[in-house]
């Protein structure tokens, strides 16, 4: 069974469209994250939720809106897509928010904005 699964794996869309990426974890973890990996492979955190509550919100445009219906799910909705949004988006989870815990990552969603 996949621990952290995200869909779709690939997403190709036009500028200006609205799209969503879904993420689910079956590890029973309390904390979930969204990371963005750019074309140079640099990873940057976007959001973190703990038990459905937002705890980290980095300087991300408000076109990006995370939603956590329950602690096993953290979806990412993006409005008015721009060319610069093209990247690989990774969902991750951890047991809690203790700083020494390891993260479990999904396999990523390759977003291409044309």
């Amino acid at each position: 069974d996949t621990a952290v699964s995200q869909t779709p794996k690939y997403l190709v869309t036009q500028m200006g469209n609205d799209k969503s990426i879904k993420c689910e974890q079956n590890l029973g973890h309390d904390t979930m994250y969204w990371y963005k990996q750019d074309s140079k492979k640099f990873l940057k955190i976007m959001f973190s939720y703990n038990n459905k509550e937002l705890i980290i919100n980095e300087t991300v445009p408000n076109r990006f809106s995370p939603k956590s219906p329950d602690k096993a799910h953290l979806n990412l909705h993006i409005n008015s897509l721009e060319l610069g949004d093209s990247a690989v988006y990774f969902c991750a989870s951890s047991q809690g928010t203790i700083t020494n815990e390891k993260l479990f990552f999904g396999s990523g969603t390759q977003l291409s904005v044309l």
Partner: protein
Amino acid sequence: AQSVAQPEDQVNVAEGNPLTVKCTYSVSGNPYLFWYVQYPNRGLQFLLKYITGDNLVKGSYGFEAEFNKSQTSFHLKKPSALVSDSALYFCAVRDRKGSSGSARQLTFGSGTQLTVLP
């Protein structure tokens, strides 16, 4: 603010030879340090972490890393490289004093592409 530097974008090593992937860090307090590996078209996988205690940490797939506080380094090592070790390796740090917001986040280095040649 915390940061991580991986000075080498690319490391090439022959199969069977020892490998080292370098990492240095900067935190205001004491660090928690991690290594993750990313295979093509996959998410990151945890390799090992340093929390406290012995400076030499052993992890998955025969990898180990040595914490050096005076040099603020946490280099990843393996005595004998395999072709299957070829992947992208990320070092990451968290400040132990991080109590809220961005201080809780895991800061990643820019990654080092390891290629093991047969």
